[in-house]
């Protein structure tokens, strides 16, 4: 098969993995080599679906021995199959990278023969890039659940990031949709990767020259909407995974049936807005000091409110804490004001040391006033705050529904 056709098939097959992050890794270019990483990821392009292109995202092959109902590459699907030779992926990566199209490679694969063999094939590509091409750019490899701890340790030597996808929050979902998979096996892969990361950190404390291991950490992905599991179940699992395995990110992928989708899932689909609300809640748990159960307690049917963001929804349920005085409140309370993001909380803390903050100051900081004004008081009069207990506040704060981009989702402030 012609290389261009393979690229078409195996990029198409890879697009259901939402992750395209290239941040969190620092590597200097080696003498005579090509590529480095400087911590901040770069989105080199955007497609009309609003997603960024940072990495060359490919499957090594879309041949797969598993039969997961939600996956377009499952063995019973009739999609056309292809398989790259390792050198073809190396060549594509290098020629794209040298033209500044990408930050690096994200390589995944269908399961061929068994988990270990598949993992070996992924490692082979990464090893060639690092050792033969002296490639210093970003590499994200899929950690194949079921692969041996030794192979995952080797993968971590070459990769900046490893990810084992959990796909579903509970075993019951996997039993009905992907009976060959177990949560335990995925979490074992996460355990092995975490061990590698922690071990490398310990060694680097004693010897700065000791080899790095997946320096941009590990992440995972959940498919949303293919199973019955509610947002409450999903967020509870995500929070558990963050704690147990120190994940950098959990990605949520709204399920959308395609032509090749398993018949029993044809009518299942998750609105993109649901995916968005999960990302917002996830962001609040990671950066705003919320616990998952604060955001999910008392939700009707267990799902997040599609009409308002989870922080606003929480504030409306806890009006007794508001309005908050921006000149006096603690940082943790400032972080809970709807419409004020982490950066603006830092600014407010800095400014109020030398200046009494007014409503006009807040406007200039580009705080989202239509949401924030009901919940704050400042040095001057704010009539909005008088209405914090009004029954109509629910309606007044309801925003127009606009879809945000993945970039906003991954970097945006709430």
């Amino acid at each position, binding site marked *: 098969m012609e290389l261009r056709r393979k690229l078409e098939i195996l990029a198409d097959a890879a697009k259901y993995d939402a992750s395209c992050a290239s941040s969190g890794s620092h590597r200097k270019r080696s003498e005579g080599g090509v590529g480095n990483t400087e911590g901040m990821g770069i989105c080199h392009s955007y*497609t009309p*679906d*609003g997603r960024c292109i940072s990495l060359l995202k490919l499957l090594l092959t879309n041949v797969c021995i598993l039969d997961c109902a939600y996956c377009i590459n499952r063995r019973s699907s009739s999609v056309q199959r292809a398989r790259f030779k390792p050198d073809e992926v190396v060549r594509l990566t290098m020629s794209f990278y040298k033209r500044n199209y990408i930050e690096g490679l994200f390589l995944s694969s269908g399961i061929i023969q068994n988990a270990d063999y598949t993992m070996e094939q992924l490692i082979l590509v990464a090893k060639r890039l690092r050792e033969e091409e002296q490639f210093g750019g970003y590499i994200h490899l899929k950690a194949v659940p079921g692969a041996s701890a030794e192979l995952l340790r080797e993968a971590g030597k070459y990769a900046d990031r490893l990810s084992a996808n959990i796909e579903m929050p509970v075993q019951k979902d996997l039993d009905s949709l992907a009976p060959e998979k177990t949560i335990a096996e995925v979490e074992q892969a996460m355990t092995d990767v975490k061990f590698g990361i922690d071990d490398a950190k310990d060694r680097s404390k004693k010897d700065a020259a000791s080899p790095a291991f997946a320096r941009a950490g590990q992440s995972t992905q959940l498919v949303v909407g293919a199973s019955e599991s509610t947002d409450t179940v999903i967020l509870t699992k995500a929070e558990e995974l963050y704690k147990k395995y120190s994940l950098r990110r959990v990605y949520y992928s709204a399920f959308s049936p395609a032509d090749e989708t398993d018949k029993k899932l044809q009518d299942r689909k998750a609105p993109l807005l649901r995916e968005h609300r999960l990302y917002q809640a996830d962001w609040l748990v990671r950066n705003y000091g919320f616990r998952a159960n604060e955001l999910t307690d008392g939700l009707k049917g267990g799902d997040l409110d599609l009409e308002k963001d989870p922080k606003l929804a929480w504030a409306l349920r806890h009006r007794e804490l508001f309005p908050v005085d921006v000149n006096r409140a603690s940082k943790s309370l400032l972080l809970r004001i709807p419409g004020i993001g982490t950066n603006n909380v830092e600014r407010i803390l800095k400014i109020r040391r030398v200046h009494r903050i007014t409503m006009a100051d807040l406007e200039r900081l580009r705080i989202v006033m239509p949401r924030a004004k009901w919940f704050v008081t400042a040095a001057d009069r704010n009539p909005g705050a008088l209405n914090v207990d009004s029954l109509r506040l629910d309606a007044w704060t309801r925003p127009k529904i606009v879809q945000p981009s993945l970039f906003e989702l991954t970097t945006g402030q709430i």
Partner: protein
Amino acid sequence: MISVAIENSFASWRVAARRLLINRVRPEDIVWTAGDQVSLFESASGEEPDTGFSVPRRFLALAASVACFDDVSKWPLLYRLLFRLKDQNARLLEIESDPDVHHALMMRKAVKRDIHKFHAFVRFRTVEVNGQEIYTAWHEPQHWTVEAATPFFVRRFGAMRFSILTPKGCAHWDLEQLTFSEALTRDHAPPEDPTEDFWLTYYRSIFNPFRLKLRAMKQEMPVRHWQTLPEAVLIRDLIRDSQNWEPDANARGSKRQNTKG
């Protein structure tokens, strides 16, 4: 009123601002104009006299960024900030909601974003010159960011010869030195590179037609950059073929949910 002519460079502004500050010239008494620098206040000894004021390092870093902004209003703004730092409040920069500070921070933000997009949107094409392969790009930055943005490419691609050509100046790396040259016009853009065929194939295939978020795309990849991005020629057709396409989605971005059924 005093008229001060400076070149479009931080160094030029800095020399002028220093002299003005020593002579306690108030910001509202200055008209800043573009041109060759003329010495305003000759210092008898030829040495730089002491301003009697140490400028906070934070201000210099901020000013160096703001100086890249593509609007001459940056010069009076920077002097006003400097004057107020000395005259009013040495901690002025901490008040990010102050209108002058806020304005300067907005300019810095725009410049930083331009540098980030510079790093993202340069597309190298291989050109052979005297038997040597030179990775050459045509890029159109919005601000005066060529000198600030190009050392990044040396760190990353230091083993490759490259030239980045722009209408705001050019940068060249010969494996040893990064040099800058005069601005060029778009007709100096290098011809297509055969690898772009594969890049466009990738761009088309990684697009997910079940999601359409044009507003988000345009926000992060402004239309003004499209003509220097080879993949942008595909955007119209991808939108049309997308199963979510609706006529008004083009203008406002789709507000509809995923409707593929």
